């Protein structure tokens, strides 16, 4: 028991002090018929070395972005993580502390959260950020809940098909038992049609979600969508990619500063690892007017008794531990460790670093998209500018086989879209981050070209055989 202290003699001493004969006596308050009368059916304990070898064995049964060239995106991206982020995130004082209930001994976490909030506000052009939520999808759902609460009487939510399908599913799950209609607007051209949006907006519409760049990597007309939503009295919820804001307009600046009302994002790209999809970082920020509807923890600046500036959890009257069934949300934790990592990441990158990162994503994505479009196998699915992802249509309509062949050749080739979009089941979503080198991109193109030849050769072979 590497983490336990009590030896048999100490246990004896403690039981004597309590005045009982055994630990069993202490458990007497558990009704006898509820007691488990056998050992749990679990594998036996492992010491550290054995555990480590076991975990390495399991890890060895995976491939990942460290041994394959990763072109996977769809909401999780292989961005570079500066070593400083790991060094800070690995400090025990950060990761083994809890929610800063005692501000006097938690200024480290509190200040870091305040800085995170401030960085998010500057990045997005919003007034207020909370100190993070679970992930991008649940942040989107919470954003919708905020919008609904702030637009009483309206119960219609518009979500384009170009919004991440798992975000749409999450929103639907959250709203399942509330009297709300979620309308999915089709995006056959890869982006939302502003005309269709206008047509769908009505005085029951509480909010419009708009992802920029969208799930297909395409750039939406965010200015027009914002204008349309606001004209109809609805809120605009912007779903953004934080890395893209190195180049793209801040959601708060949409439509000449009219701006999104609520912004949400998946923030793992800001210094947290792919990690099989979680834990991640849900970013949520909004305009000042909406702050009392905002879910989650918020850190505020104040002064202590001696007048020294300091930080505390604030506006807690919104929260469940005080409001209980009247709370704005049931959220009672945040992703503090990953919000910290995001703050360190943004501090380490600075304005130029983020801009350069976004620039490399853009250029390399364009390069690969153009090169792949020249292959026999693929053609672009959409004719819209993209940022760091794009959709290709497989002329052979065999996306799964392509992915499997690419895996063997050393590539995590892309995300097949069929699971979410039956009409795109011959399509592949390919992401290119700043980490991908020209050599890797060219190698991938060469692989696709060679595959085409192989297929041709195989077909000729088969033909030859059948004639043989």
């Amino acid at each position: 028991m590497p983490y336990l202290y009590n030896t048999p003699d100490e246990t004896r001493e403690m039981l004597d002090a309590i005045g009982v004969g055994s630990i069993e006596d202490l458990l007497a308050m558990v009704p006898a018929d509820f007691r488990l009368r056998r050992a749990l059916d679990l594998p036996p304990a492992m010491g550290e070395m054995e555990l480590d070898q076991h975990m390495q064995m399991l890890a060895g049964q995976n491939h990942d972005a460290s041994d394959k060239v990763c072109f996977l995106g769809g909401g999780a991206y292989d961005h570079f993580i500066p070593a400083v982020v790991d060094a800070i995130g690995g400090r025990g004082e950060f990761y083994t502390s809890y929610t800063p209930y005692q501000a006097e001994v938690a200024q480290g976490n509190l200040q870091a959260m305040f800085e995170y909030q401030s960085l998010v506000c500057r990045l997005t052009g919003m007034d207020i950020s909370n100190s993070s939520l679970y992930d991008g999808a649940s942040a989107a759902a919470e954003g919708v809940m905020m919008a609904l609460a702030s637009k009483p009487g309206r119960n219609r939510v518009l979500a384009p098909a170009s919004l991440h399908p798992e975000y749409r599913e999450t929103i639907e799950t959250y709203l399942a038992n509330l009297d709300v209609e979620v309308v999915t607007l089709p995006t056959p051209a890869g982006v939302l049609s502003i005309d269709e949006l206008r047509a769908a907006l009505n005085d029951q519409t509480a909010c419009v979600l708009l992802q920029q760049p969208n799930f297909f990597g395409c750039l939406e007309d965010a200015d027009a969508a914002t204008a349309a939503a606001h004209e109809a009295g609805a809120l605009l919820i912007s779903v953004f990619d934080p890395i893209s804001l190195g180049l793209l307009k801040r959601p708060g600046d949409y439509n000449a500063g009219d701006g999104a009302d609520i912004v949400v994002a998946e923030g793992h790209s800001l210094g947290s690892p792919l990690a099989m999809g979680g834990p991640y970082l849900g970013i949520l920020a909004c305009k000042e007017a909406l702050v009392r509807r905002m879910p989650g923890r918020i850190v505020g600046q104040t002064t202590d008794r001696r007048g020294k500036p300091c930080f505390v959890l604030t506006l807690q009257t919104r929260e469940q531990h005080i409001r209980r069934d009247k709370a704005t949300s049931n959220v009672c934790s945040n992703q503090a460790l990953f919000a910290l990592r995001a703050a360190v990441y943004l501090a380490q990158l600075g304005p130029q670093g983020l801009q350069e990162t976004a620039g490399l994503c853009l250029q390399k994505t364009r390069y690969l998209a153009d090169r792949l479009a020249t292959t026999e196998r693929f053609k672009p699915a959409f004719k819209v500018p993209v940022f760091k992802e794009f959709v290709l249509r497989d002329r052979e309509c065999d996306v799964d086989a392509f992915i499997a062949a690419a895996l063997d050749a050393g590539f995590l080739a892309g995300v097949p879209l069929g699971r979410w979009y039956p009409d795109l089941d011959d399509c592949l979503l390919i992401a290119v981050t700043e980490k991908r080198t020209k050599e890797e991109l060219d190698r991938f193109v060469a692989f696709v070209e060679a595959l085409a030849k192989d297929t041709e050769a195989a077909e000729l072979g088969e033909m030859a055989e059948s004639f043989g």
Partner: protein
Amino acid sequence: QDTQLLFELSHAGRRATRLPACDVPETPVAELLPAGVLAAAPPELPELAEPHVVRHFTNLSTQNMSVDTHFYPLGSCTMKHNPKRNERAAAYFGALHPLQPQESIQGILRLLYEAQQYLCEISGLPACSLQPAAGAQGELAALLVAAAYFKDQGQSHRRKVLVPDSAHGTNPASAVMAGFGVVTVKTKTSGAVDMDDFHAKLDDDIAVFMITNPNTVGIFEPNMGPIAEAVHARGGLIYLDGANMNAILGIARPGDFGVDMQHYNPHKTFSGPHGGGGPGAGPICVTDKLAPYLPAPVVAKRGEGREASGENGGAEYFLDFDRPKTIGRLRSFLGNVGVMVRAYAYIRSHGPDGLRAVSDNAVLNANYLLSRVKHFLPVPQGDRCMHEFVASGAKLKSERGVSAMDLAKRLLDYGYHAPTVYFPLTVKEAIMVEPTETESKATLDAFAETLFKITGEDPDLLHEAPHTTPISRPDEVQAARQPRMCYCG
């Protein structure tokens, strides 16, 4: 050391990061993207050199108390030791993309599958979803499962969720989010559910009774059997808030004491680090009849091979999306996999005997500390507890004017994180102490002695406490009245 804000350290032109020159032919951005989507200027971020960044955040870290540095008996939060081996193991799975082809992720799927099995065995409930991102989301997920189940059963009239007044605030909040109405049930000083009030509020509209057991004063609910029986008799379900599972591992299984659904807090029970507030995770287990409604996907297996050897023995692990009755998903991807990797490592490090020893020692430590504290701080619930207890500072308050908050703040001066105070709401001047099993008798003794010493200190000294921390008590009223939640330099 400096506590200037990052923004105050910024100076135009400084940089810590330089990206490589673009190695593919570059096209001017203006040709690639329409002007309307582009930012007019680079993002407004502070400009720093790397030494700034490192020193700033390193020094911030030292202003925190943490489990790695201090005894942290924060009741209900189970601040136990976070094993370093688990952190190392989690890093082995850091570069996995959640949308990889499943043949390329058999190792992690196997781990998650086994984790599901372990959670089921520990809870005594047969089906599991690892998806919820936190305990509160687990509650919501389970309540949505219940709602879907009742709808399927044609019992959509069941809109009532019963919640004891000593419950965590998330319970009622989750119930409302899932579309239910909340009815509060009273509890007694002992922490037990007031059975009269319970029966008065139980009717055929009940959907779910949400119970925390061991409860938030640290006792095993004495009426667990009758409650479950009565709720089930009315066609309702029992939901267990699993925050206190640390007390009963291998001792009693919720599925065996009438629970239909529960969440876990792996960051508490299975030693995942709390990370300053998160991430946690909130996997849930449910009975067979509720299994079809679990969030999708779950991890499933074809073929054989549960063995721990290097081979999967022909078994294939896969993500099962084909669950037509699922409530859907509550977040992207698979859940907080990294937290589950740590939980898996923790469970494998302990085995059945080890997990039992965890709970035995959590209970032993809590009772020992209770036995030392009760002489000077009354513990209304009595002489026994499970993994935590709630002392009351009411007498101290009335006699000496010293509040639970004063006590808590003064403890900081002595190098102890404060217990949870003013929760549960049912105990006056509540001081909720959870020592956990990963503290030594010597630490508990020193803590008890310090607590006793403080109760005799000058009340004025205590009102002004803490005295030795980086800041003194913050003005929370000012923070709420004139909120400053963002640097506006």
